[in-house]
């Protein structure tokens, strides 16, 4: 078992009777679409301090029918002061290639814009770490992939990791600062879901399903490498995290199931997630869930399937965290 999670989903799939057809197809599709995007954007000029970074299903390598084009233009350094000339996007044709029609980025002011790395790293916690800053920082760490400016992207990622580790990391300990922020982010998503549902019942079914599955994958996929830092000296943790976070979250989870001798459980957990991805890729199921209210969901057959898949996925994650060698770490660090 190597220390890098890259390729672990393929390895776990060899233990699964039906494999993970939806996950692997979505991964192929994402890689093809990334190649296509990179080719289309290759010729244009790009500021060496900027990168175009895809997030969401792109970052998880899970593109299906109906996936959004969630992206950020990351710019190194600080936001220009008031009165200073605005920084030009520097990436031509971006808006003509991304976010067209139904694929438009999420509507809460998180995606589809220019973001400066300086404030993202400087404001971890406290008043100035608003929802957008926290979300952009976490998604950069947990589910991002560059299409333009790979070097600039790598530097941004390093700065964010350094922002958590500098002066905080300890030998053979999960980095608490990062761990706490990750848990805060997950709980924030959960609380915001409930708040949003109270204010607006629209899309409840799809939002709930994604919370149960995609967002949980995202959280667990970050939690595992952070806990695995306990295997490393302080000086090794940065490289370890950077490598792990470059792998898709499904690779990180598959790697953990393999590493902790929980292959049967991993096959079932990611098998359930695989079936969910199949539902997401089906326009009919997707439309049905998008139109489902909370009240109607209680007796809805499609939602019952989603709930069942989500439970299977969650139980696999709980077994991984609490019934394998990860259990002492989960008990010691995850709650308090």
């Amino acid at each position, binding site marked *: 078992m190597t220390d890098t999670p890259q390729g672990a989903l393929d390895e776990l799939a060899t233990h*699964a*009777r*039906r494999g993970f057809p939806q996950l692997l197809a979505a991964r192929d599709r994402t890689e093809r679409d990334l190649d296509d995007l990179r080719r289309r954007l290759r010729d244009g000029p790009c500021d060496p301090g900027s990168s175009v970074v895809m997030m969401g299903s792109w970052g998880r390598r899970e593109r299906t029918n109906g996936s959004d084009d969630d992206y950020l233009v990351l710019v190194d350094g600080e936001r220009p002061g008031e009165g200073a000339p605005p920084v030009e996007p520097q990436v031509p044709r971006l808006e003509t290639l991304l976010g067209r029609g139904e694929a438009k980025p999420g509507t809460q002011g998180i995606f589809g814009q220019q973001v400066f790395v300086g404030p993202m790293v400087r404001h971890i916690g406290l008043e100035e770490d608003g929802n957008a800053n926290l979300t952009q920082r976490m998604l950069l760490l947990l589910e991002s992939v560059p299409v333009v400016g790979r070097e600039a992207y790598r530097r941004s990622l390093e700065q964010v990791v350094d922002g958590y580790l500098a002066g905080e990391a300890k030998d053979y300990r999960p980095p608490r600062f990062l761990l706490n922020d990750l848990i805060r982010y997950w709980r924030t998503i959960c609380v915001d879901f409930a708040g949003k549902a109270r204010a607006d019942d629209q899309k409840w079914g799809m939002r709930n399903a994604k919370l149960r599955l995609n967002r949980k994958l995202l959280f667990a996929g970050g939690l595992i490498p952070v806990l695995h830092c306990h295997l490393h000296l302080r000086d090794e943790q940065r490289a370890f995290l950077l490598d792990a976070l470059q792998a898709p979250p499904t690779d990180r989870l598959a790697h953990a199931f393999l590493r902790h*001798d*929980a292959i*049967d*459980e991993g*096959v*079932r*957990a990611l*098998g359930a997630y695989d079936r969910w991805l199949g539902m997401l890729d089906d326009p009919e199921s997707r439309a049905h869930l998008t139109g489902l209210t909370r009240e109607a969901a*209680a*007796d*809805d*057959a499609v*939602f*019952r*399937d989603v*709930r*069942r898949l989500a*439970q*299977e996925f969650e*139980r*696999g994650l*709980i*077994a*991984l965290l*609490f*019934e*394998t*060698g990860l*259990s002492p770490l989960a008990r010691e660090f995850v709650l308090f």
Partner: protein
Amino acid sequence: MVSAATRDARTGVPFTAHHPLGTSTGHLVELRGQWDLLVRRALDVSTLAVEIAALSEPEFVTLCDWLGDAGRGLPFRFVSVHAPTKQLAMPEDELVGRLAALPAAIDAVVVHPDVLQDPARFRPLGRLVVLENMDFRKGDGRTAAELEPYFDALPDAGFCLDVPHAGSIDPTMGVAHDLLDAFGDRLRHVHLSSVDGDCHHVPLTPGDEEAFGPVLSRCRDVPWILEADLPRR
């Protein structure tokens, strides 16, 4: 003190610490048909998982009525219903229709393959239906080879591993491992107890705990449903 036999070989965790662990109401024979009381007793074991067992068709009919009123209010996070295996009189299509109409809170319906007349009739239940492996007394559904045609007929069905049933066929537990090798990716829950010489469920014996350990350590993510009282030690 917990004996070595009660510990999972890989993690050192006692079986009773498994999450989620629940009980079947099937072994509470003195309360048969009194669903409120049965569920109350099940809650004493766990508020997280339960199997509500209607082993005869007349019981099942009363359970359907009861669930129609109470189904949504059940607090458990995992609820399975054991479909009837005795005194079967209604047409199989009607049984499937009644199972399909169970409240959405029901996560799984356990069926015995050997009582199915036409397994394909259960296909509309999709992932709700869960096939259980049978004990040595039954003529079918005991091994991976015998279960294969049922899963072929029900491609979305889940699998419930009855550990002592597998042990009754092969005390070395090779059959149990074969079943997990073949259908492990469908595993939805586990039935756990010991069985006596007539294959009646009895509390888990120390010897069986030892023997079942490696099998159970492949099932750490699914509910374990006790089909007898917890062992008194």
